[in-house]
């Protein structure tokens, strides 16, 4: 191409290029392959070769073009096919072996391959003759990933061939430069950039126009325009992608900046780890120079501008402008104090302006479309778009450009597509390794420079890392800190030494050696680093740690106080993730090892050290252990709950008499002391058991006619048959616990009487949460409205009586042929719905105000699945506003809901759509929207409670009245059986401690560790899969309460136990502890 000597020449070339491109589009098939580094890594070159071969084989005319990265990095290699000048259709993950079918179907048969297609990328109207099959492909704009994006800096990314300047020119490339050179004064350029409100996209957020003005005003003949392409954040690749996909935009932006500031030399400082970006930049510079768009007298004007590339060695600190300058000068890349600022004395002592790649890339578009247009995007104080490299635990990882001010949650859940693998959102880290980790409560934060800072993070250059609940925040903070300290240049003391000391503290905490003093140490060191470090690296190194301390202090305290890593990441603290995550801390690998060897009694004994209700939990536990099982990373988690159930049932015939605990001296001290436990639920019974085992005289007072609490009086029989349940409760009695049913607090006895009249030394309130929350809508008093828990209780108590062979006085509503509505999304709601079906209801609707994914009952996916199979209908995003009917319910008026802002649980709050309500005809309505403890017995202010009417307790479970302890749902609010058991264990320790010493330290339950060597060869079970639980056929469930889950056979249970990867043995190695001897263990307790 000839050199362009005038602005007119450029316009001509633009026209020519546009025609050439249009001609290419009219080809039989124009195919574009994304070949950014991400694409190449995913195999784009091989795919491209396959496409060329396939086209040649079929003798199809079709240019194959390499383009940059469109941002969908998770879907590379991306292939975009345009046939006969129609719409572009984008395909994901196209591997070479998929190419023949793709060409066959899309090009030859003009039918898109639906299962591979992502979207259609039509610019303007598609041609009239576009095949219907292609028209049916969803538009780019309609995808959640792209729908909320606005592309300014990335406008050309993935669209043009980055190695061909004419493609850039065809899309108005260098037009802004021509306009500026032809019509604008430098001051005018600066005015427009200032007016646009563009703020430094490197993360500083300083007004770009003002920066240029400062540099322009600095005296000096020689000035430099520097582009900071030293992108060093782990997980960030925005700049790389722009340089690889649209290098000319950066060059043009720099030339405009050079014109504005009176500089004639530009330097791009790009790290050598970006070879493709460097190649493409070099090619772009050469092409632009050849065309006279760089060099002397650009487009025949007096303006001359040259750009050179300087490779950096990849030091993170060289992103700091003074360090970058030092590196360009050939010195050690270290920052120096400012002032003087680079605008006054920068590279080689000359006034210099440093901007990020993205800032320069946005400049030409601002010039072309005007400051007003740019300001119309984004938020008032941060106009324009923000570019993020979205990585971590989100479904759509990749590069996104979103308008500033978009809520953080929208990026993660809409653009990012939410958290994969059924995990929940925990935190998002913005601003690179020096940013901050924001919790769920920050999801509504608008993403812009000022709001993020206010929220406790920073905008940074554009890294955004999402983490789920499997991530330990202390470990994450340590990870970022390790990076930042390794990248500290070592010049100033606070950063070099402070970072190291901070890392030591965090390391200590993650290894369980931390103390509470360490929290203050973190604050002190961080404060010093932030106030006194030389550059931003040191000042912001404590960012992640401080944000974790601010938002996740509880997690840090768990590491310190309990040597517990709640998310199961800290290697030294986590013996096995299943044990770690079990609220009761049951030694799962140990009993799985014993099940594998057929030593069920020993296994059950180990289980009972922590959890006396193996049968019950074998059926009704949400099995937190399974959600963290590492086997899931290979195939599926171990079926721990089902295997455990088999073990417990195998021993059904062996009654357990709980063994005494503690030393003889301890039991001596406790004998004669009496403890009253109110409530015979899992918390109360466990506490009673442990106290009895410790030698106390324990009496349990239960209001209901049968013991078991929610276990027996709420969970329906088809999930938890009554017979084995009572067998397990009998075990508690065998420990010497006196369970008195039908004894109501406040009616049959009072708290004071327990102490004064009955001589109890201590009382444990384990009264559960039995009071249903009201809907709070008109008509709740109509007949046919039954609270979910009351409903379940009637049914469950009835079943108990039947199981015990007693007469039942339950008032079970006759639901036969009726239409039943259940409001809520928790366990109670699902149970109520399934029970209603079993009682013969014609229709059962579950009405939930959010979406199905947000249901609290999702922690038991089998429940929702079972309900669906059995015919329960789910109405989501609805909320009752009125219960209709004269005296009796005839229906419910439901308001459609939409999801608005996020709440603290990372779920969106439902908001009524006022105009959209409808009526659902019903005969019965069962509200099941939550429960609180029933405190009707309590005198006002007798004990301190929270607003949610749960008891306020100290860390030793003590209530505001000395001697009165509380545990279980009455403290935590509605939770699970195993959580209640865990509380029961701990409250017993606390009560024992208080009765013996009068002290109330935080209780810790200490049981021995059990190490068992596997006797089987693990490799033999490498290919084994999780068994599915045999279930009662849906047809056979109708009208009865037969147990749905049928249990595993011994053979299957043993085989399943052998799939366990035995993380506990690996931990022994890590801790330098000896592994158990296989033979010794095998002989020890074989029955």
């Amino acid at each position, binding site marked *: 191409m000839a050199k362009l000597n005038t602005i007119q020449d450029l316009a001509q070339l633009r026209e020519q290029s546009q025609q050439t491109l249009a001609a290419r589009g009219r080809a039989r098939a124009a195919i574009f392959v994304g070949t950014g580094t991400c694409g190449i890594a995913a195999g784009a070159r091989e795919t491209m070769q396959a496409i060329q071969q396939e086209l040649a084989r079929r003798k199809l005319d079709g240019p194959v073009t390499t383009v940059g990265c469109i941002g969908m990095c998770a879907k590379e290699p991306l292939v975009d096919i345009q046939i006969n000048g129609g719409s572009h259709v984008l395909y994901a993950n196209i591997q070479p072996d998929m190419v023949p079918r793709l060409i066959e179907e899309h090009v030859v048969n003009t039918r898109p391959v639906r299962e591979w297609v992502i979207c259609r990328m039509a610019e303007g109207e598609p041609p009239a003759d576009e095949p219907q099959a292609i028209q049916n492909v969803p538009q780019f704009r309609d995808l959640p990933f792209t729908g909320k994006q606005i592309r300014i800096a990335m406008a050309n990314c993935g669209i043009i061939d980055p190695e061909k300047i004419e493609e850039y020119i065809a899309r108005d490339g260098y037009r802004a430069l021509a306009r500026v050179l032809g019509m604008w004064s430098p001051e005018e350029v600066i005015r427009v950039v200032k007016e646009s409100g563009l703020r430094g996209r490197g993360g500083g957020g300083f007004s770009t126009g003002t920066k240029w003005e400062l540099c322009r005003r600095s005296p000096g003949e020689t000035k430099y325009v520097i582009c900071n392409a030293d992108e060093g954040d782990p997980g960030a690749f925005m700049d790389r992608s722009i340089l690889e996909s649209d290098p000319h935009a950066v060059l043009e932006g720099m030339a405009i900046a050079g014109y504005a500031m009176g500089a004639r030399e530009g330097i791009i400082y790009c790290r050598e780890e970006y070879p493709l970006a460097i190649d493409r930049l070099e090619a772009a510079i050469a092409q632009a120079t050849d065309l006279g768009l760089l060099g002397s007298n650009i487009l025949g004007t007096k303006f001359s501008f040259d750009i050179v590339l300087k490779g950096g060695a990849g030091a993170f600190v060289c992103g700091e402008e003074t360090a970058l300058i030092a590196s360009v000068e050939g010195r050690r890349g270290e920052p120096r104090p400012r002032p003087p600022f680079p605008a006054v004395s920068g590279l080689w002592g000359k006034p210099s302006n440093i901007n990020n790649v993205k800032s320069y890339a946005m400049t030409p578009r601002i010039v072309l479309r005007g400051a007003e247009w740019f300001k119309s995007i984004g938020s008032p104080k941060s106009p324009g778009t923000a570019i993020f490299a979205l990585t971590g635990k989100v479904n759509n990882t990749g590069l996104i450009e979103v308008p500033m001010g978009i809520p953080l949650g929208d990026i993660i859940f809409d653009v990012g597509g939410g958290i994969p693998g059924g995990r929940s959102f925990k935190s998002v880290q913005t601003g690179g390794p020096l940013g901050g980790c924001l919790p769920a409560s920050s999801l509504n934060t608008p993403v812009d420079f000022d709001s993020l800072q206010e929220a406790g993070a920073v905008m940074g250059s554009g890294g955004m890392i999402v983490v789920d609940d499997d991530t330990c925040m202390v470990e994450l903070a340590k990870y970022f800190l390790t990076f930042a300290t*390794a990248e500290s240049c*070592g*010049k100033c*003391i*606070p950063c070099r030494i402070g970072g190291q*000391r901070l890392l030591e503290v965090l390391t200590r905490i993650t290894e369980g050696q931390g103390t509470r003093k360490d929290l203050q140490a973190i604050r002190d060191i961080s404060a010093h680093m932030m106030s*006194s470090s*030389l550059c931003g690296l040191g000042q912001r190194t404590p960012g992640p740690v401080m944000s974790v301390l601010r938002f996740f202090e509880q997690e840090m305290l768990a590491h310190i106080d309990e040597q517990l890593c709640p998310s199961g990441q800290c290697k030294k603290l986590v013996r096995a993730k299943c044990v770690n995550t079990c609220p009761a801390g049951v030694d799962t690998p140990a009993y799985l090892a014993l099940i594998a060897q057929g030593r069920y009694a020993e296994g059950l004994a180990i289980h009972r050290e922590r959890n006396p209700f193996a049968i019950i939990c074998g059926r009704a536990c949400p099995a937190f252990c399974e959600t963290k099982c590492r086997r899931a990373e290979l195939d599926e988690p171990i079926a721990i709950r089902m295997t455990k159930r088999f073990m417990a049932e195998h021993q059904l015939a062996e009654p357990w008499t709980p063994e005494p605990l503690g030393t003889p001296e301890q039991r001596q001290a406790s004998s004669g002391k009496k403890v009253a436990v109110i409530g015979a639920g899992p918390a109360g019974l466990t506490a009673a058991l442990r106290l009895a085992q410790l030698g106390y005289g324990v009496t349990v007072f239960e209001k209901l006619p049968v013991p078991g609490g929610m276990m027996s009086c709420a969970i329906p029989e088809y999930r938890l048959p009554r017979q084995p349940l009572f067998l397990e409760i009998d075990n508690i009695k065998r420990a010497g616990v006196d369970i008195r049913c039908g004894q109501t607090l406040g009616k049959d006895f009072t708290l004071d009487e327990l102490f004064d009249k009955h001589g109890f030394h201590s009382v444990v309130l384990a009264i559960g949460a039995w009071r249903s929350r009201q809907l709070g809508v008109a008509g709740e008093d109509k007949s046919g409205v039954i609270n979910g828990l009351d409903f379940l209780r009637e049914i469950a108590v009835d079943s108990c009586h039947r199981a015990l062979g007693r007469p039942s006085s339950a008032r079970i509503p006759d639901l036969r042929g009726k239409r039943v509505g259940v409001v809520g999304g928790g366990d109670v709601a699902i149970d109520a719905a399934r029970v209603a079906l079993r009682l013969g209801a014609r229709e059962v609707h579950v009405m939930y105000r959010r979406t199905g994914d947000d249901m609290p009952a999702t922690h038991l996916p089998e429940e929702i699945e079972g309900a669906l199979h059995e015919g329960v209908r789910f109405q989501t995003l609805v909320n009752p506003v009125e219960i209709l009917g004269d005296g009796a319910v005839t229906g419910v008026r439901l308001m459609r809901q939409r999801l608005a802002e996020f709440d603290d649980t990372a779920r969106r709050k439902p908001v009524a759509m006022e105009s959209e309500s409808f009526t659902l005809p019903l005969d019965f309505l069962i509200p099941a929207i939550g429960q609180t403890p029933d405190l009707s017995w309590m005198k006002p202010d007798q004990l301190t409670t929270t607003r949610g009417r749960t008891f306020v307790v100290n860390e030793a479970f003590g209530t505001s009245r000395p001697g009165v302890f509380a545990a279980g749902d009455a403290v935590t609010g509605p939770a699970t059986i195993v959580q209640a058991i865990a509380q029961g264990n701990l409250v017993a320790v606390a009560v024992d401690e208080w009765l013996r010493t009068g002290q109330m330290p935080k209780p810790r339950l200490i049981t021995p560790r059990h190490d068992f060597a596997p006797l089987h060869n693990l490799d033999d079970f490498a290919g084994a899969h999780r068994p599915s639980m045999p279930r009662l056929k849906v047809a056979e469930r109708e009208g009865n309460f037969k147990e749905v889950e049928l249990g595993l056979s011994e053979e299957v249970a043993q085989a399943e136990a052998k799939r366990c990867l035995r993380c506990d043995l690996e931990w022994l190695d890590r801790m330098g502890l000896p592994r158990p001897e296989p033979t010794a263990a095998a002989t020890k307790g074989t029955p």
Partner: protein
Amino acid sequence: MNEPALIQITIDGRPVQARVGQTVYEAAAAAGIHIPALCYHPQLKPAGACRICLVEIEKQRALQPSCTFPVAEGMVVRTDTPAVVASRKASLHMIFSERTHYCMFCPASGTGETTDCELQKLGYEHGLDCWAYAPNYRKQWPVDATRKYFVMDHGRCILCRRCVRACEDIAANHTLGVNQRGARTMICADDDVPFGESSCVSCGTCLQVCPTGALHDRQSVYLGHESQIKRTPATCVGCAVGCSIHAITRGNHLLRVEGDWDAPNGGLLCAAGRFEVVEPKSARILQPLVRRDGQPVETTWDDALTLIGTKFSEAHLVAGVASPRLTTESLAAFECFFHDVLESSEIGLLSGEVPPLDLGATASLRDVAEADCIAIIGGNPLQNQKVLGHLIRRALDNGARLILVNDEATGIDAWAEMHLELEDISFHAASPFERLKTTYHLRVSGLLQLKKAIESARRPVLLYGSGLSSSVYAALRTLPEQARFLPLVKGANAVGAARLGIEARPVRGDALYVLLGDDQVDGLALPQSEFTVVHAAVRSAWTDAADVVLPSPTWAEQRGHVFNLEGRRLPVVPLLQPPASVPAHGQTFVRLAERMGQTLSPEALAQLAVQE
């Protein structure tokens, strides 16, 4: 040059007058307000690294390093707020936690007032009486003891990088640098080689700036704190640069020599001037020796002087040789003795030829460091005037152009922008025709090139050696006026000797008097004579061959003056008491004259030297 404008600032509530361009630290120091600092050193470019000197400056959101922050009109600075002090203490605590600061084993350690360690001093001042962070004692930090004269103990290093900046900015030697990053940062030599294998030239400037005991010299270590030693400003007589030194003595022992920061040598010294002078010498001569039966035998001064008097009286011609290390006073006495008593003019200098000193305006050492163009014509300052070599390299670092007109390699040849041979600038013959015959155009253009380079420079300095052909000197005389000339004189006081008319030349006589002082004679041949007197401080091949040996004071025991290559008259002061049996040179000549029946008055001798 215009004086920088004066502005008003406030420091700790005190109005302070400062100059534009000063840093806050400098303005405070000038007003007598001391701001603690560790990486700051008045001789070095500020780095802003240690963060000890952070102060509060109004309208700045963070604490700012006073050592780099420029003053501005109306600025309000506080150096003592709780935030400032807390930050300083936190940094100090961190430094103590970083490496193995086992103060009790450190040569710099002292109690309160007596410590030589700037870190320990700040620790005392800020009441650091406990470890805020567990000390990092488990890690072994390397000790680099591979150099002859000094040791680097990384365990005591605080990475202030004063040594690196001294090596870079003052010595311009670029040996020391920083290796690795973050907590793994280490001071290193070259590409992380042992110091002993590096490009270090043992100038020792780094030792002079180290704030702790990390860099310490082997000769004076553990021999005394600053509070226990005596510091005497003096002049090095090692070579003609005549560096100003601080001699550090304790009792009658020389412990160490340091460069005087305020002198033209700017604190720089060479290995010889800093370390070798302190090394133990070969056997000191304390009594006169006479050769009897071929063996030197100790005798009395009377005996020796009588023998010399007799022999000299009998001699046909007594010749004299003197060392250029001697003071002008000693040389004057020597010259006077020969002229007045022996009536001989057969005297010469042992070495130290002085080139013509009248080529043009004389340059000073400071001119060299600040030159924008340096030409070296014959001679090798990097070898023979080492401190001058450092100044040249510093000028080159600052962008000065280098022109070499030389037939030998200099060690900085690679930096030369123009490299000519001496032949290229010399005029061989008188007539233009002859010139044309022997020098073709390239040769003529050599001088033109040199002239052009000098003309385009603002502060050109020409360093020229001795012993060049007269046509070279003639060519240099034709250079433009702004050129400043500095002769590359060898021999510490050769200029002083030349002023007395004593030049380096061979002498001949049937009797010989060698005034050696403490000069070394390695390799030089003793002139042939029938009777030889060697007046020397230490034993050497020459004393062994002499008929009579007279004990001489050393450089550190004499008083007088020397003239350096700039022609500056520099004081030589006695740093040590000479042994009782060793009189000053002048006194020996007075007594010897007496033996020969003549009179030399000490007063007259003193007068002679002063005249010069």
